[in-house]
């Protein structure tokens, strides 16, 4: 039941600082002309060996199947700008990512896709991650407006990048329609900026 400001679901903790987008989705899976098939490739090389045999990654633990809220550590999504990374997370079933900090391009990509990035400080995040390990079946209740998260009868707080939070509260996380409205104002800027001749 997700209305604009509420998110719910079960969680999983994927440990690690500086988890880069090459790890989230290895480059060979970027060979595609749509994002539709990316879900199964999520964290592939962390989850499977070179013979495609499961390495018993937490994402494949039976108790965490169907989880829609991922918790990680600092600087999540660093490296390549590939939107394939948040697309793979979303196609895999994730709807919310919680971390201490996010790489910026990744954060922007997630927002546009409607997947909120929640920033939670270390002590609370560690406590939450531990609790998720103990209660894999418990449901999160997240309120983006109040910036509260309730899990296993405990309340946690988080912050969001203000523009991202505002985008979710109003349901306008995809900016394209608003960008297109400014057509005339764009033309004014385009005309004023007399860039040097690119036409060759």
């Amino acid at each position, binding site marked *: 039941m997700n209305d604009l400001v509420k998110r719910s679901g079960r969680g999983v903790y994927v440990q690690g600082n500086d988890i880069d987008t090459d790890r989230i989705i290895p480059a060979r899976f970027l060979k595609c002309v749509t994002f539709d098939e990316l879900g199964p490739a999520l964290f592939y090389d962390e989850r499977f060996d070179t013979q495609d045999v499961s390495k018993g990654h937490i994402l494949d633990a039976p108790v965490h199947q169907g989880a829609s809220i991922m918790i990680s550590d600092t*600087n999540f999504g660093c490296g390549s700008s590939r939107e394939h990374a948040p697309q793979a997370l979303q196609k895999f079933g994730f709807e919310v990512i919680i971390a201490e900090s996010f790489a910026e*391009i990744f954060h922007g990509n997630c927002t546009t896709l409607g997947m909120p990035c929640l920033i939670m400080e270390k002590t609370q995040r560690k406590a939450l991650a531990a609790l998720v390990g103990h209660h894999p079946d418990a449901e999160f209740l997240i309120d983006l407006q109040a910036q509260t998260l309730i899990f296993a009868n405990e309340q946690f707080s988080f912050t969001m990048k203000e523009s991202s939070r505002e985008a979710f509260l109003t349901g306008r996380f995809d900016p394209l329609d608003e960008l297109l409205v400014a057509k005339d104002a764009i033309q004014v800027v385009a005309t004023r900026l007399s860039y*040097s001749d*690119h036409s060759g």
Partner: protein
Amino acid sequence: MGKNLYQKVWDDHLVGPLENGQYQIFMGLHLIHEVTSPQAFGMLKDKDLKVAYPGRTFATVDHIIPTDDQSRPFSDPMAERMMAVLSDATEAHGIEFFQPNSGSQGIVHVVGPELGLTQPGITICCGDSHTSTHGAFGSIALGIGTSQVRDVLASQTLAMDPLKVRRIEVTGTLSTGVTAKDVTLHIIRMLGVNGGVGYAYEYAGAVIEAMTMEERMTVCNMSIEGGARCGYINPDETTFAYLEGRERVPSGDGFDAAKRRWAGYASDPDAHYDDVVVIDGDAIEPTVTWGVTPAQALGIGERIPDPAAAEGLDQELMSDALRYMQLEADAPIAGTKIDVAFIGSCTNGRLSDFQAVAAVIEGRKVSSSVRAIAVPGSEKVDQAARALGLHDIFTAAGFEWRKPGCSMCLAMNPDKLVGDEVCASSSNRNFMGRQGSSTGRTILMSPIMVAAAAMQGAVADARDVFQLEQAS
């Protein structure tokens, strides 16, 4: 109080505020390639939208293109499909596409500058994080996701939050054998892989001012590896001299007018900065990575750090990195055996990179245990290198001289590590699995350090291997 370059470019390109508190910013130049734009064209089609300013978008093919046999169809059917989609989309929307064998194809961040598309004072975006490269010219150059590629195609604008600006002053003079790559690895080592989050980096100081444009591109290229959204260097006479005479730069009176306008974008002497960091350029050593992030780096003479000296998750990260790299704490990094040597990429695949290496490898041989490849960043780099005979020097030394492309930097093409091979690489990322094998290991370094490692079969100090003398 004056303005810094970032503020000037932002103000010039501002269309207006958006309802969520972000701002709509006009993009002067949009560069696209085959990996992150085909899906965006699909999104446009779904919404029945046209490309708003096709004359401001330029396409090339780099990530998936093979560097050996580039004949069509490519041997990999998916690579062929991506190429075909880009080719059809650019034709349908009237976008100029620098095709293979056009004389202008290459890595997108090599092509833009060498054609003169990249100019000071403009906003540039591309669905590739290393777009920060173009900041070397005093542009604000941003890597973006595919939905944003869609936004730019449809509106020529992006929704953006303003950034803070950190000025990084690299003082003094670099020692012989210390390069722009060492400067950027050193900065990331000092400030961390997430030290730049929320910032644009302005690189300045005597070391940066003395650099050529190609060296400046190497520094700005890796801004993203330090977490910064972009990095730039104020335009100066070095910038203007590089641009003069380029294919897409105006000539004569037009150039003089452009030059005056460009100069006006440089940060004012009394500009405000949110942060200032001073780095001692004299102290920078040839720098290499030992771990799995670009910040896990050390000087060539140093020993690999001991996780026991770190705390908490940092300790785990370091232990994981050592385990992955199969390296021992407290051992010297010099002497680490390598299997592959790669010179190329948007970081270090320009003519001056190959010139610097050719100058030291002539008459020497790559170790018999090493597979060495040199991959020019563009067809123009390839042609210029051949005209100077560099290709022969590399080949005689035992390097394979390949055709232009991203090659082994990210291995979306046939150039890959096999198993747990160790690669001495002039590229930008040493992430786990980055070079195409889930157990492959990458050690980042400058091109001449890659050359030294290739000759020795192990990580080595180029100053010793090539007997580089400190200029008196």
